[in-house]
């Protein structure tokens, strides 16, 4: 594989698949007994989740005082985690919606899992602002509903309210997109299900799908519309997240570069998380034929692109701060690079700007271990990016007497661990009960019925191979006419 000269020749899906084998491979994953690795992973992530639940219960019972926040540093771990998780989600929407609009066919193998990742990441993200409210049981006050407090409405001029609307919309649209994309596959599972409960459950959620082309046509239209809506949505969501900072007057936050910088960073971090998850899933779930070197290669290139955009943003931000002539801006940036939290700043720069540049080399891009290690570095780097932006802008403000430092408390660390636990638990359960790869979409990119060498004929649906398929097509066209 590594010796192949051009990438074009590499098949998207390996192993000469037919629709029947795709169904068998992917649905087979759901029926079979999970591997020991899966059990190990679910035990680990579920224990992490329990740690998080315990920390959250203690937090709700006691209060925000259990966190390491102080008067100067009012936002730290929680908002870092929130922005981090929201960012992770964005790559899922990029793969499922933006690449769909751009007709990138490689997305078909990874879009289902990436969308699942989006939904789980948004769930993790949503928890942090709710927990930060201090009285999470009143979170519904964010909704503008007629109430007995004189009908006190939410303040639509506040970026935090924008954020509430952005995140809820993003969650609901992602969920809809994911579910609509899954209906044909759920029908496939329904028709293969052995047990009555499974047949009923998959049948219930597949809404009576029967593969009618009339429905397919409308379905494709709906899918296109949702993709068209999700694309500006994903940009708006992280733009609004960045406005949480940019509309304030804090040096280091109050900058116009934030929206594009945040969107690029979000896609960058999410793409790294997709790579991490996909490379694990590829090995543990034997998806080697579906997630091939071409997918990893394409995602690595996106990582270089977005990583370089993020790097450019770091440089621009620094330059503008120095050039602005504003001593407070200058101070914040010098403090970031050389103050008490300089170590975090340099972790961020080396992980996000440095490590993805290694992907320029084809050898590294095509080494699954290499890409996996880089993706972990990027995940770490992007978490630190949000930490640096939030904490270094706050901890030394205008009055030196206000200066303080920030150390996370155990509860905060436990909550971060718990959010990873929740994320991986949900993802592992998804791998177990739902099709990880979009079967109906992969079948569509198998080159069946097209005049390409090396693919199989549309009538060999039972898996038989007809080698000279092009001649068959010619016959199909000519014989009936001559037999007139």
């Amino acid at each position, binding site marked *: 594989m590594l010796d192949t000269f051009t990438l074009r020749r590499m098949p998207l899906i390996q192993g000469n698949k037919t629709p029947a084998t795709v169904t068998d491979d992917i649905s087979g994953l759901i029926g079979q007994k999970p591997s020991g690795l899966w059990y190990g992973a679910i035990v680990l992530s579920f224990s992490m989740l329990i740690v998080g639940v315990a920390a959250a219960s203690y937090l709700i019972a006691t209060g925000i005082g259990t966190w390491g926040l102080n008067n100067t540093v009012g936002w730290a771990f929680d908002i870092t985690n929130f922005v981090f998780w929201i960012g992770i989600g964005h790559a899922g929407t990029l793969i499922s919606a933006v690449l769909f609009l751009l007709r990138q066919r490689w997305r078909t193998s990874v879009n289902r899992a990436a969308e699942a990742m989006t939904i789980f990441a948004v769930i993790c993200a949503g928890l942090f602002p709710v927990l930060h409210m201090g009285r999470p049981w009143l979170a519904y006050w964010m909704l503008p509903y007629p109430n007995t407090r004189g009908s006190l409405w939410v303040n639509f001029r506040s970026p935090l309210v924008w954020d509430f609307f952005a995140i809820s919309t993003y969650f609901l649209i992602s969920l809809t997109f994911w579910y609509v994309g899954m209906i044909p596959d759920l029908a496939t599972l329904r028709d293969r299900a052995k047990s009555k409960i499974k047949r009923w459950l998959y049948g219930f959620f597949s809404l009576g799908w029967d593969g009618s082309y009339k429905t397919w046509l409308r379905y494709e239209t709906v899918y296109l519309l949702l993709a068209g809506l999700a694309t500006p949505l994903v940009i708006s969501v992280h733009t609004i997240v960045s406005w949480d900072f940019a509309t304030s007057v804090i040096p280091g936050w109050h900058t116009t570069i934030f929206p594009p910088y945040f969107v690029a960073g979000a896609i960058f971090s999410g793409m790294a998380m997709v790579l991490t998850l996909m490379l694990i899933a590829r090995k543990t779930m034997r998806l080697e034929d579906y997630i091939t070197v071409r997918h990893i290669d394409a995602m690595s290139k996106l990582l270089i692109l977005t990583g370089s955009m993020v790097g450019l943003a770091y440089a621009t931000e620094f330059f503008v701060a120095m050039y602005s002539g504003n001593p407070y801006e200058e101070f914040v940036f010098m403090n970031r690079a050389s103050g008490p939290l300089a170590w975090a700043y340099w972790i961020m720069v080396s992980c996000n700007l440095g490590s993805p540049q290694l992907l320029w080399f084809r050898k590294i891009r095509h080494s699954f271990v290499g890409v996996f290690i880089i993706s972990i570095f990027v995940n770490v780097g992007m978490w630190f990016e949000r930490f640096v932006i939030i904490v270094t802008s706050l901890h030394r403000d205008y009055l030196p007497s206000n200066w303080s430092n920030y150390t996370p408390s155990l509860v905060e660390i436990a909550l971060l661990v718990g959010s990873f636990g929740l994320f991986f638990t949900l993802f592992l359960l998804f791998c177990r009960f739902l099709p990880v790869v979009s079967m109906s979409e992969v079948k569509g990119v198998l080159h069946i019925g097209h005049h390409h060498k090396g693919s199989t004929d549309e009538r060999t649906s039972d898996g038989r191979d007809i080698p000279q398929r092009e001649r068959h097509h010619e016959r199909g066209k000519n014989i009936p006419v001559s*037999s007139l």
Partner: protein
Amino acid sequence: MNAVKIFRSRHYKIADVYTPYAVHGLERALGMKRSRLPWITFLLGITGAGLKVWFEYWTTMVDWPINVGGKPWDSLPAFVPVTFEVMVLLAGISTVLVFFGVARLYPGKRTKLVSPAVTDKDFVMVIDEEDATFDPEFVRNLLFDLHAIDVQERLTEETGK
């Protein structure tokens, strides 16, 4: 897809085609019209956005005006983000609901599949037989010439795989 083209050119009435995945180009072969769903999405999006702008003005200017940081009552730029989100939300969710409606997809619906493997690997073409000149034998041969795996006659419909 060839079979569809040939049958259409011979004026057979194709009731529907059942496929395991969306075959691109088949809609042209079948002569189907484009879906009108985008218009519905557009209208719903506009409605959502319009209602939301009205709601934002009504809550912040009319029902209970609160001065936050001396911002002007008419703060349209600040209303844009939420308006956009609500537009996307309403357009997206209701488009899907309308689609479920017109395609008659609902939870718990009992399906009678034309072939048990139509969601797996089978391509099924259903031809309506209304005409007196309909020659089942000829159609059968034609379909087998087109590499059909199986041809079945059913009481209300004829099915060619």
